[in-house]
């Protein structure tokens, strides 16, 4: 391993503020002023909550409720089938009216299984504060289990189960990196969270630090988030916490990407197809820290999150705290509704988000932004022109890839070559497409290639399984055929009597017959009641015997 002796020193050095830079990146207009300076609103309890059973990467979870069940706030709705899954919880009390396929926030617009809850408005659930846990008393393994049970996934966007990042690691973690670099334009939910609830975030970080046991802990914050940074410093001071340092990083998109942030702070690169834990780093979002605080200190599972509802298509852009499962339409209404010239609705930011056709979709664990834009704000993409090989995409790629080559290979369905050029290291940040003078929708090519490769991969696996099943079927049929042939042959031999078995049978019959004969003889030759006979009786018997003998000899003649 590359880091052993001096690695600790390196992370110490990091905490003193020496910064590195990643390749590429862009300076983008922020569009955050309004939402970052408006207090977090509350979207309230919507009449209907639609909670998709699958909200994260991982195996599908098993549903525990059915239509007609009453549920309380925080009740587990699914059972996680393994460590790579987390459960989902009812985000308010009410009645389950259906477990059925509904529209979910996904670029495909497909329907997925959801639990639909009609809320009763009481919002009743177990008392929050009653049995607060002292996390320092908990074993790190137990802590991780509680985090999984609370359904916590990375709140930054990818939704990777937090437990896996915190616990399933093979080596010592040097650095716990808290990501407060909210780099994508328009989004300010982490910013507002820090301004208003810095103490909770700090407490959440301390809990995660207890689980990870890192050598150092750093909060990385963009240098334009002054109010949030101040709130964090105050919270750290009032918690008299000196083991967590705050590092300002320059505002460059996408500095909040996990790999980019690690590069900025440590100069190290996460290996291709590897995880930060491979180089001794765990990176967590501030929203995740707040969720961990809720799960451990308040014993409340992940049932709500802060969503930035913004764009010129929204009447009162602001951050809203809402329950998971709240329809986007409800959120938009809580933010004053749409303006009249709204054009498009996006889930996520303008760079990495995706357009959706309907606002009748729920907020899920990874929904950080609802963006309604007007035509002037985000014009429809212009028609793509041929690539002129200007190389601008390569200059801005934060993953240090060759976007142009990837484009050619993805376009010509040469997926093997695209993988050789590390297609899967692309974080789909959109920088290349942003600068492309030919307006080529580069990211869409990469997304297409990635999903196509995944599909081919799974088809290949299915084919392998089919081959094995077919081969074992043929083997079984062959075996059955042989067994039958053997049985038939044996029967035939027995009937033909050419293998000595006939003799054996005959001798067995003979032996049985002999046994019976012998027994019969014994019975007839030994008459009963012939003890202590009188002379007269003896005489009579002798006479009878004589008669019988004479009769027998007469018969024989």
């Amino acid at each position, binding site marked *: 391993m590359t880091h052993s002796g001096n690695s600790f020193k390196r992370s110490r050095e990091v905490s003193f503020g020496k910064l590195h830079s990643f390749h590429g990146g862009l300076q983008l207009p922020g569009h955050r002023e309004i939402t970052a300076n408006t207090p977090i609103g509350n979207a309230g309890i919507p009449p209907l909550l639609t909670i998709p059973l*699958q909200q994260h990467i991982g195996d599908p979870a098993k549903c525990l409720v059915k239509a007609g069940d009453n549920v309380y706030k925080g009740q587990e709705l699914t059972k996680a089938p393994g460590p790579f899954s987390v459960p989902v919880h009812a985000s308010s009390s009410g009645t389950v009216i259906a477990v059925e396929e509904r529209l*979910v926030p*996904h*670029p*495909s617009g*497909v329907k*997925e299984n959801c639990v639909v809850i009609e809320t009763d408005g009481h919002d009743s659930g177990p008392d929050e504060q009653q049995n607060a846990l002292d996390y320092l008393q908990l074993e790190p393994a137990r802590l991780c289990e509680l985090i999984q049970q609370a359904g916590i996934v990375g709140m930054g966007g990818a939704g990777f189960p937090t437990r896996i990042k915190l616990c399933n690691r093979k080596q010592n973690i040097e650095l716990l990196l808290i990501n407060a670099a909210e780099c994508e334009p328009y989004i300010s939910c982490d910013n507002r969270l820090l301004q208003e609830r810095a103490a909770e975030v700090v407490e959440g970080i301390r809990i995660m630090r207890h689980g990870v046991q890192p050598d150092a802990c750093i909060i990385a914050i963009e240098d334009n988030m002054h109010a949030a940074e101040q709130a964090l410093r105050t919270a750290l001071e009032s918690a008299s916490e000196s083991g967590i340092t705050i590092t300002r990083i320059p505002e460059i998109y996408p500095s909040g990407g996990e790999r980019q942030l690690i590069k900025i702070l440590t100069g190290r690169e996460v290996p291709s197809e590897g995880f930060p834990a491979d180089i001794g780093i765990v990176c967590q979002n501030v929203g995740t820290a707040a969720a961990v605080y809720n799960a451990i200190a308040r014993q409340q599972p992940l049932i709500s999150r802060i969503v930035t509802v913004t764009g010129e298509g929204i009447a009162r852009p602001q951050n809203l705290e809402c329950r998971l499962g709240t329809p986007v339409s409800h959120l938009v209404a809580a933010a004053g509704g749409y303006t009249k010239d709204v054009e498009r609705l996006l889930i996520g930011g303008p760079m990495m988000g995706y357009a959706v056709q309907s606002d009748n979709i729920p907020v899920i664990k990874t929904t950080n932004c609802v963006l309604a834009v007007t035509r002037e704000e985000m014009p429809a993409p212009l028609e*793509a022109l041929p690539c002129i090989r200007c190389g601008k995409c390569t200059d801005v790629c934060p993953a240090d890839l060759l976007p142009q080559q990837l484009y050619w290979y993805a*376009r010509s369905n040469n997926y093997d070559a695209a993988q050789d050029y590390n297609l899967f290291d692309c974080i789909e940040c959109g920088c290349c497409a942003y600068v492309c003078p030919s307006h*080529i*929708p580069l990211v*869409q*090519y990469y*997304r*297409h290639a*990635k*999903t*196509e490769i995944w*599909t081919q991969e*799974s*088809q290949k696996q*299915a*084919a*392998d*399984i*089919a*081959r094995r*099943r*077919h*081969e*074992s*079927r*043929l083997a079984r049929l062959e075996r059955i055929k042989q067994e039958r042939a053997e049985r038939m042959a044996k029967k035939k031999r027995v009937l033909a009597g050419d293998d000595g078995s006939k003799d054996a049978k005959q001798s067995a019959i003979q032996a049985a017959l002999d046994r019976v004969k012998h027994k019969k003889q014994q019975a007839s030759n030994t008459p009963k009641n012939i003890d202590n006979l009188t002379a007269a009786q003896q005489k009579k018997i002798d006479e009878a015997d004589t008669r019988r003998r004479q009769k027998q000899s007469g018969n024989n003649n």
Partner: protein
Amino acid sequence: MLTALITFGLLAAVIGLILGYTAIRFRVESDPIVDQIDKLLPQTQCGQCTYPGCRPYAEAIAADEADINQCPPGGESTILALADLLGKDPKPLNPEHGAHSEKTVVVIDEQVCIGCTLCIQACPVDAILGAAKQMHTVISSECTGCDLCIPPCPVECIHIVPIKTTARNWIWPKPDTGAKKTVAGQA
């Protein structure tokens, strides 16, 4: 002259021995061509190629008895892969064997099924579960979509259904064509 002959003769013998030994000792186990061809086939086991399964077809291709364009489930991509492997010219799918379509699966209408077990005997990958006079069902994750179970069914209770598009198997549409391509072929 004689010395030179002996020297080179010995040298040749020694080198020949070394080469002979290394050829045996460091032999590279190559993947037999039949296995390589079999790996490229979709393993539907449908028999549309006229051979009783994918492996017999692979053997026939290897023996140059069959052409590379007889596999409708594999379609163009399989033909291209086979052409690439065997160094042959790709050619369009032979329509005699059928047309390429996206993968489907079958389902048994359990209300209608009489439990005759004929479909179980026809299934090449043991994807149908059931017993005599008991209801049968298809394990859809194992079904290859070969449709071999459909002709034997006496009550026509087996139906072909497209594979459902979910968030997991959905494919981002490719920009330039604009055509949506999905696993199930639902555009």
